[in-house]
């Protein structure tokens, strides 16, 4: 019986509690999407509720949109490398995902450039600032507009936000159904 692995049977539906959810989020894929969701929500908060919330948004902009945005860039790089090396090419095989990745890249570059204006990144990577500074004038506009274009795209096209929400609904619906059948 050499070379044969015993595969444990997976429980369906799985146990869901706070511990399992947190454990799941520690994985790269959900962590990547969690960061992305935080950045999207905080960005929308700033743009849509800014005139009312004003200075209350300072920490949200600085920490949740700024520092987490910087972390997102690093996670994005690791994510792309993992997708390519693990040969999970199905992740990028839909047109929606291709365009999504293109949007992420634009948002990352414009976000970094906007953040670079007047300091931060200059101290760490001066060359980067000089490379990005010619587009600094346009980056806030591109960053904001591309976010909304991305929302339209991922709402209307399959594989986007609504597909995700629908999948979550279906899974929870199936779970309820199986519970009822068991009882």
């Amino acid at each position, binding site marked *: 019986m050499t070379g044969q692995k015993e595969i444990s049977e997976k429980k369906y539906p799985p146990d869901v509690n706070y511990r399992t959810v947190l454990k799941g989020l520690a994985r790269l894929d959900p962590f990547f999407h969690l960061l992305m969701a935080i950045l999207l929500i905080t960005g929308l908060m700033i743009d849509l509720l800014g005139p009312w919330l*004003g200075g209350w948004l*300072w920490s949200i902009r*600085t920490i949740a949109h700024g520092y987490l945005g910087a972390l997102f860039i690093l996670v994005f790089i690791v994510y792309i490398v993992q997708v390519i090396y693990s040969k999970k090419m199905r992740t990028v095989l839909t047109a929606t995902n291709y365009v999504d990745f293109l949007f992420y890249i634009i948002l990352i570059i414009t976000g970094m450039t*906007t953040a670079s204006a007047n300091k931060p990144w200059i101290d760490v990577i001066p060359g980067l600032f000089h490379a990005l500074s010619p587009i600094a004038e346009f*980056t*806030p506009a591109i960053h904001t*507009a591309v976010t909304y274009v991305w929302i339209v795209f991922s709402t209307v096209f399959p594989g986007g936000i609504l597909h995700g929400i629908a999948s979550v609904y279906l899974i929870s619906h199936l779970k309820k159904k199986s519970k009822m059948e068991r009882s």
Partner: protein
Amino acid sequence: MEYAVLVDPAKCIGCRACQVTCKRWNNRPGEETTFSNEWTNPPKLSFDTYTHIQFKLEHDETTGSTKWRFFNWRCMHCHEPACAEACPVSAITKHEEGPVVVNINRCIGCKFCVSACPFGIPKFDPDTGKVDKCHMCYDRVPHKEPACVQSCPTDALLFGTRDSIIQKAMKRKEELNGYVYGDIDNKPLGGTSFIYVLDAEPSVFGLPEVGEALPATVPVIKYSKWLLVPAALGGLAYLVSWRRRRMKEKEE
């Protein structure tokens, strides 16, 4: 009533009294100075330096003579400020009297104003995470002239109602056979509350060519949120079709 300041670089002697007075009135700390060929100190505008005299030594090769030019950089206090339009939290306000003021308590340090300003005036401070700039002493105007104007020993800065300042600018323009930047010859962003009368072309002083209308990037920031409408409609259509499909599946 709208007020304005006339800046006449030809009268400036580079004493930097305006810089010092500005710091004292606004209680801003001094900055480390640097040695450079131009003697400009501090080298540029910053979160703590609202106004700044740029020194420029011009050499005329035909006559062999040299000439100092001193130029007062600060916020121009535009009539339609791009910074205020770009600010997502309405932290920048154009006052009726002319000043464009940053409400530091509302500022979230997003730097949209830094990118929007064609003159590169608002400055970000990484320590406080906020942006600030000259506010034209809105806490003094109109009862008192701005602190920098009060300190100028040569009347290179003059304060008054906008109409009176424009009249003085036109008169001085004739004397100098020069240009008026901020009104008359060039009205960046609808005109500015700091009006410069120049004895040479604006580009000699490093002033950019700025159109009367807002830069195209500002309306994009402001109105792109309307894209949420097609997103919501698209989402609704998706949900309706999805529900129909589910109902059909159930019936079958």
